[in-house]
């Protein structure tokens, strides 16, 4: 069973790696952040998969922490852009 779980983990890593490599050459940093989020989800999945394979329950805590902090990165990215809020794209222009 452990071998199968490692194989599944390797597959998830491979998928994330392929996504990363392809998105990396994309034009915008938003795409790169998406690649980072994909990697975060992949890392959560991998940690969950190898925790039973290595009989190390503490890796579940690591998965929990990864889920928590991948989201923090998105917020940090937004914060670095500055404080302006864009108007909703479909909202009618407010008349003075």
């Amino acid at each position: 069973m452990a071998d199968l779980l490692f194989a599944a983990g390797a597959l998830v890593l491979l998928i994330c790696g392929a996504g990363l490599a392809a998105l990396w050459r994309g034009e915008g940093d938003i795409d790169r952040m998406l690649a980072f989020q994909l990697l975060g989800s992949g890392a959560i999945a991998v940690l969950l998969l190898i925790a039973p394979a290595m009989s190390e329950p503490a890796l579940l805590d690591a998965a929990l922490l990864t889920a928590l902090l991948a989201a923090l990165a998105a917020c940090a990215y937004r914060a670095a852009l500055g404080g302006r809020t864009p108007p909703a794209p479909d909202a009618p222009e407010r008349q003075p």
Partner: protein
Amino acid sequence: MSLVFDALAGLLVAGAALAAVTAAAPRAAVIAFMGYGVLLGLAWARLAAPDVALTEIAIGSGISGIVLLRAAAGLPAVPPAANRALAAAISVAVALGLAALVLALPEPAPSRAADAAAALPATGLGNPVTGVLLAFRALDTLLEKIVLLLALVGVWALARDPLWRGRPEPLFAGAAPAPSAFLARVLVPIGVLVGAYLLWAGADAPGGAFQSGATLAAMGLLALMAGLAPLPRADDRRLRLVLLAGPFGLLAAGFLGWATAGAFLAFPPGFEKPVIKIVEIAITASIALTLILVVLGPPAGEERP
């Protein structure tokens, strides 16, 4: 099969690192560096070092991102400076030299694992890494606390003279937009719970003061980003008290050791675990606050009364 996994993880870490150092734009480099932090966490998990994995995830992909993304904002893309072919040759030489050293490591490997395992029951702890950090090598931890304080003094020293008592620059210029504020409101309570759990579990399972402090710092920064809490003033006495609680708590425990156990930083026999736990709580609070303050940067604005 696990070796295939390890080889893949190793290559991905190196690939992310390469992307970080070759990216032309600063922000792209920082995003690659954050990805490298997540992958490095996986490597630590596979090296049977869950304590280090937790630290790396919390710091490498979490609060590092806040500092570096902030630094990258507005920096222009700078073309590589030096002779790239020469630099590549030197770097390959460094990597090959280290690889050769690694392959020549002595067999059997030298280890203090047996000593740590033998001495652990005396501390009442179940996690050998926490045992090393707070009992066997407590002097290192004490010095590390002082280094953290020095880093904070260094950051604060960069404040302009009339402003140094005030508050740092906000992480969000103006109010945080609704989605970010929502994210913070949802994540901060969960994250504080996770941080407290890591401290509580750290005595007997992977976790402890460093992991907990880093997680709490990340959540504090998220709360500050969303404006859920006011930015701290550098001259706030309570703040300084918490900053000093860790190093001085450990120091006090050290002198207590002289009185009760006959050596500096020896814990009173019979009471090892409670004393270590109390010191660990103080250290966690200091680490969390120090990390928050070094990320926020020097005081920059005085609030007019």
